[in-house]
């Protein structure tokens, strides 16, 4: 099997799993417990916090709050800070942000504003800035688009946003960026969501990185864990495994980026040009590549490919409901429904090899040709 759906989830890193194993078996204690064994676990979590923060920002200026996933981190950021006036985000957001904005609108809390996208899926910065006024309380812009891989220069955007309205809280969904793109958070970023399972960690672990000094109202209330900002007994095993997996990933982050960039160019060059047209551009994240095959249905191609051992993602679904059928993001990039119907997402991880891409290309091309013949 060749796995090209790493934007959905990645295979957990084996060494990180074995290293963290001890927190399932011998060191299973509750980190909030008073005895020494429990207290020691608190130290372990603290260490994980630092290890997860250090590669992307100053541990003096930011802190790390563990959550159960990226979606929870996004929700906590939005529900805690988008409370008045209007809030601005982009049409390219993951549903964790997009639907939460819609929900706030339904509840009558804020007026949501969705900035349009450019053809590659990155936000049109000028139009985003035009939407910001003195009543804007919150802005959320994803770092890397999960469908097209387009990169938003969030440090630059945040600086411009703050210049226009310094009171805005700036959040970025970094789920597809953390541990992948070599990058550091600037002081203009207030909140940044991350997820473990996109970089060899486990499902069920995520985090919200927060600028120190910013008071974060709790979203989940209870026993006061995470300094009262996110109650619930910590997933110690998941957190430690995340720490180990991220440390491993960050160690080769630049090399991976450069190597995958080459692989991605190779992929784009190798796809049958009569069938596939690229959505992702060379400037985007090499981890995510979206293409479309007009006239073919992405999901059908996905099924035929999975029968042949190639696992990919798609932007469309065999849904009888048009709302669920086309990717809202791809349509927002300016593609029509026919094009959006044929989207294929090929996403890499640090373990993807040139061999995988060569073999994958051959099968993807031949399956697409065959399917096109059958559906003519």
């Amino acid at each position, binding site marked *: 099997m060749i796995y090209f759906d790493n934007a959905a989830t990645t295979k957990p890193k084996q060494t990180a799993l074995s290293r963290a194993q001890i927190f399932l078996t011998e060191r299973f204690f509750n980190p909030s417990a008073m005895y020494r064994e429990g207290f020691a676990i608190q130290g372990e979590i603290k260490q994980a916090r630092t290890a997860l923060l250090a590669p992307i920002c100053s541990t003096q200026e930011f802190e790390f709050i563990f959550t159960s996933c990226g979606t929870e981190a996004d929700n906590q950021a939005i529900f805690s800070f988008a409370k008045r006036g209007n809030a601005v985000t982009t049409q390219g957001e993951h549903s964790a942000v997009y639907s939460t904005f819609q929900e706030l609108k339904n509840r009558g809390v804020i007026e949501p504003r969705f900035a349009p996208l450019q053809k590659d899926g990155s936000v049109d910065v000028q139009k985003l800035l035009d939407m910001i006024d003195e009543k804007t309380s919150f802005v959320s812009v994803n770092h890397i688009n999960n469908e097209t891989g387009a990169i938003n220069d969030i440090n630059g955007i945040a600086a411009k946003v703050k210049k226009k309205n310094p009171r805005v809280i700036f959040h970025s969904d970094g789920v597809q960026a953390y541990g992948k793109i070599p990058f550091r958070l600037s002081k203009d970023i207030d909140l940044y969501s991350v997820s473990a399972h996109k970089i060899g960690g486990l499902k069920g672990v995520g985090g919200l990185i927060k600028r120190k000094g910013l008071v974060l109202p709790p979203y989940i209330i209870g026993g006061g864990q995470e300094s009262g900002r996110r109650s619930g007994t910590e997933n110690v095993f998941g957190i430690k495994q995340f720490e180990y997996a991220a440390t491993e990933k960050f160690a080769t982050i630049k090399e991976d980026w450069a190597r995958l960039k080459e692989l991605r160019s190779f992929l784009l060059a190798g796809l049958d040009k009569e069938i596939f047209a690229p959505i992702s551009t060379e400037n985007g994240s090499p981890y995510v590549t979206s293409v479309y095959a007009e006239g073919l249905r992405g999901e*059908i191609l*996905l*099924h035929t490919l999975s*029968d042949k051992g190639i696992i990919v993602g798609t932007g469309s679904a*065999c*849904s*009888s*409901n048009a709302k669920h059928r086309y990717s809202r993001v791809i349509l927002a990039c300016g593609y029509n429904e026919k094009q959006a119907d044929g989207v294929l997402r090929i996403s890499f991880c640090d373990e993807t090899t040139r061999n995988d891409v060569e073999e994958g290309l051959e099968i993807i091309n031949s399956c697409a040709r065959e399917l096109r013949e059958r559906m003519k």
Partner: protein
Amino acid sequence: MKQVIIIRYAEIYLKGKNRGFFEQIFANNIEKSLRGIKHEMHRPSGRYIIDNFAEEDVDEIVSRLKKVFGLHTLSLAYETGTSLEDIFEAAKLVCEEEGTFKVESHRGDKRYPLTSVEISKKLGGMILSYNYKLKVDVHKPSFTVNVDIRENDKALVFGNYIEGANGMPVGTAGKALLMISGGIDSPVAGHMIAKRGMKIDCLHFHSYPYTNDQAKEKVVDLATTLSSYTCGTNLCTVSVTHIQEAIHEKCKPELMITLLRRFMFRIAERHALRIGAQCLVTGESLGQVASQTIEGMTSSNSVVEKLPVLRPLVGFDKNEIIDRAVKIGTYETSILPYEDCCTVFLPDFPAIRPKLDEILREESKLDVEGMIEQAFASLERIVIM
């Protein structure tokens, strides 16, 4: 005093010499539906008693029994001694806190010293002096205390009657093959036929890779819900992808559905005969969609040679069908937005009144037998308990 459940059956009463056959199947179905729950069942005359179950299982038992066809009503009762004091103790548990009531008594044991009327009078008096908030109303009481003196020196005391699913026990009327899609209608059609005593097997057509596994899983979920009424079912799935592709390639696009449906009916009949089913059941409702016109039905029926095709929903409006789907618990699953038959090949304007000679002309371009054989090669069987 112990809690028991009284079960009364429906139309089986009307049966004559073969009543025993119906009773036996009914009893088996009850046992099947209570599988996994500790209980005992007894069959005194004309009804069934469930006892020796754990108190915390009562709700689960009742909700399962309510789905057993052939069951007219059931009551949660207390079995106690026949002295008036014992009966009164049980009656207290049956009584509501306030409102109006009456006592209905029945003597199975005619040696009992009091007549039915006397039992009702005396017990009514005891209840009135026990709770001053209650009043007697023999015409329109808000609840009834029923007393049944039985021949084994036991009395049953119970409150209201809980309505069952009625109909005939599944398995008393043979076996049907339900053509199940992922939609709202077919599970309802299956439910209606099962209600009249037929065992139901299901057949589903998919077009993988044009449809996905979620769509198939949805059908498994629907069949599972249906099986709680039908004492289990067998679901078979067959791929019609190659048939759609061949029609798409060789025939007029507006006849896609008409031709495909003829294949489905052929496959269904052959499958039905193999598994011993005696009819085909579909969820068609006249005029609901382009293929469900009388011409469409004629075209499908003409390929079914030996079996009747039952369409229990033929005269139902969509709203009526939805109401039933909600009631039997399939609606929520049915409206999940997965395609059941791929729309890739669907024409913009399907033929509404297909003519048989034209259909036959188009069909002659296809290797019908070969394609049916290929379809059977893809058959998968899922047993749902």
